[in-house]
């Protein structure tokens, strides 16, 4: 019988690492995506994501179930990623190197080569543009555009009001549109 998320969390709280592994397997990609959008460098994102789940495991007993598990783990991820990004803001050269490395990776989505190329180019420009936003603006647009979290959930994660989420999101979208111009 497959365990529900609630059962898995309860088992984690009793120290069952295997139960936590199941939860991690379910959410690690989504967590990694948001972290990658904030810290920009894949290896750094991997480190921060691992730290996120490690902290999650260590603090699972404090999880009261007032929010969903992914909102809870997202809060840890976003806070760690923002801290990391503020501490280790990488230079433009490193970013370009990473962009080249990323562009060389095979794209598993879609079969239309023209669309793939266009998407990859747009994606590179978009990620370069997003890196110019502040960590708070990045986090907000990533949580909304990538995860589809509600303003309420984002506000809870970021520790700000829904109005602040709305204005940050409006500003971030405006800035990205300006940077991308006709490419969008």
């Amino acid at each position, binding site marked *: 019988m497959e365990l529900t998320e609630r059962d898995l969390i309860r088992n984690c709280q009793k120290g069952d690492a295997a139960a936590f592994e199941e939860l991690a397997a379910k959410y690690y990609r989504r967590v990694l995506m948001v972290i990658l959008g904030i810290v920009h460098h894949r290896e750094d994102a991997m480190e921060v994501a691992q730290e996120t789940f490690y902290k999650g495991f*260590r603090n699972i007993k404090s999880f009261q179930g007032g929010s969903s598990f992914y909102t809870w783990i997202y809060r840890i991820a976003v806070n760690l990623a923002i801290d990391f990004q503020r501490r280790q803001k990488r230079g433009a050269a490193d970013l370009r190197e990473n962009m080249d490395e990323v562009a060389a990776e095979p794209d598993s989505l879609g079969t239309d080569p023209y669309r793939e190329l266009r998407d990859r180019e747009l994606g590179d420009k978009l990620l370069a543009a997003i890196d110019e936003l502040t960590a708070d603006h990045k986090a907000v647009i990533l949580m909304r555009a990538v995860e589809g979290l509600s303003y309420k959930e984002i506000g809870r994660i970021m520790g700000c009001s829904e109005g602040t989420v709305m204005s940050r999101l409006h500003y971030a979208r405006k800035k990205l549109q300006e940077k991308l111009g006709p490419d969008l």
Partner: protein
Amino acid sequence: MTECDRIQEWLGAWLDGELPSAKAAEVKLHVEKCAACAAEKERIQRLDAALKRALEARVSDAAFAPFWAGVRDRIAREKSWRDRVFDWMRGVLAFPRLAWAIPVAAVVLIALFSTVRYFGWFAPTNLASVESIDGHGFNVALLREAKTKTTVIWLFENQETEDDNSVEPAASEQAF
């Protein structure tokens, strides 16, 4: 600010389904009849979709096994650190080393007692002591009071022996 500027400020929140129904209806009505705002709406949708695609493409090859191995390593490091602490505590509290407890307890008690004495906690409210020195032809008496840190010195002339029943010397005979 034009009507379009005003509507475009709400476009993102409208697409996110975060506007109250009356405001959402107003935005929807405007977008249906305004080509510029409809184009802006599509740009926001393309932006969000492109961002999601770009990030999905970059994590699609991130396998779980190496990821979890990193998390497991961290958990293992944490456990060994705890184990080390527990081992140390077990070692210290083991029977042959219990002898440590006695000097440690003694030091703690002395420190506690000294602190109490130093700050005067639980001390009697007022203590005074009287000392006297008898010399040939002179007697000296000292009164020391701890609370107000007062010292009073009496000098007496020609009183060879201490007389508890003697009357207090006159004020003119005192010297300070």
